[in-house]
């Protein structure tokens, strides 16, 4: 069996197993709140470590008050 077929088989087996119960999940979320299942807050996490580990990785910048980057074209490109 090829790797692609094996992957499809895993998905097919999961769906066939009926291990995921819509009703039970709905009850679970209702009891625990929607935030338990959401992952938006941790989007891509944060880069940690010393300066050497940061080579080639720009910092994550949370722009609270943003401007169109077109405004800095001249500063960046010199034109």
């Amino acid at each position: 069996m090829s790797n692609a077929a094996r992957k499809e088989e895993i998905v097919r087996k999961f769906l066939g197993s009926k291990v995921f119960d819509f009703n039970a999940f709905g009850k679970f979320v209702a009891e625990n709140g929607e935030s338990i299942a959401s992952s938006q807050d941790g989007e891509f996490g944060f880069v940690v470590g010393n300066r050497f580990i940061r080579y080639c990785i720009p910092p994550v910048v949370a722009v609270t008050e943003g401007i169109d980057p077109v405004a800095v074209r001249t500063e960046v490109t010199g034109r």
Partner: protein
Amino acid sequence: MRNLNERKAALDGNDGHCPGSQDVEVRPNLLKRLSLALRIAERTIQFLGADGFDGSDLPEGNFAAEKPLAETAMLLYVARRHKSDPELQRPFDKLLQDLIPHARSRQMRWDVLRYPSVCLQLATPHILLGALGHKDSDFDDLLVQSEMACASRGHEVVPYRELEIIWLRSLWRNENPGHELEQTALKTALGNPIDLLDGTRDDAYAHTHAAMYYTDFGNWQRPLPRLTEEFLGESAAVLARALIVEDYDLAAEALMAWPLTSSAWDPTAAFGFRVLASLEDRVGFLPAGRSASKQLLQLAGHDKTKYALATSYHTAYVMGMLCALSLKPDMASPFEIAGPQCSMTLIEFMHGLIPRTGAQWEQVFQSLSPNEQAALGPFLFDVAIIQNSRKGDAAQLEKLLQIGIQNGMTNSTLCVQTAEFLSRVGCLVAQDANRSR
């Protein structure tokens, strides 16, 4: 395998191979974008090459000069195969000459001898300049002494950074990397998939960087530890996620996977390239994200320029590298979105499942022809899964897998990870229900 000097001659266009097998309209377009990156690099060295960036009171924080110096050297290293092109010759040579005094400054010499455990990383600009034909034996002597110091193995690194060190040592010694490279690659994202649903940004960068070092930025054509298609499927998911959150730096790095592995662009990758190119055309350079910080408007003169460059240069470099790699003779046009077609009913259905956020990809998707849109079923499927995973909508994820099975789209790592996640959720929910009985 040819030795390093032979490979460099080939890359410099001295082996009789005729470059320019690409479309007459595509090649100038890519060269123009690469030239823009070199121009931005010239300014980066001018403003940040001596002291780096002091932004201790800003969210961007500080970085020492060694960071832009190393990245500028990498840009030149990747661009070198096109340096004889008339559009690039002058900016390439100018940037190279600007970089040399900074790369081998007294401070850099001091740092290399003072910190033996990271001496190769610190010497990145020196090593890459050497690979570009600009050697310096005095600097080499210092580096040899640091490399031989008993503390030189004293800084532990994660496996993809280990690949980087093997790559740098190999270039420095002008030797082919040995078995160590393959063994280390097994421990990286080249050997094992990252968590495509909930992995960190570090994980995503580990995925993109491992391919850069393992292939010497596309120069070493050695087999990956697993099927290239499997790795590229994961790159497509990283790309989709980066386009959703408008992290264009990561998007451009994810796209490099195709030329690094000399693989034909698939519709998702070509679409990603179109998104980045359209944004670069609109803004004048490829920005890191949708917005720049308003703090910039409070600055003036040198400070403003330094801030703008410090927050923008990296993404502009990555776009330049991506274009340089896309110019490889064996690569087709990265702009052409062509592949197996999904029915428009399915495309519209999946498109309807994706919440609109105003991201650049949404506008570019709307501008495509029906044939191009129809080739983007796998991309929309990935986006729908990632968006619903972010929302925590497990029920919708399960429905998506059903749709995927019906349409032959579940043979990806992302789908396997989604099925595994839902299985775990099912287990937790069942345990919870048992406890409350």
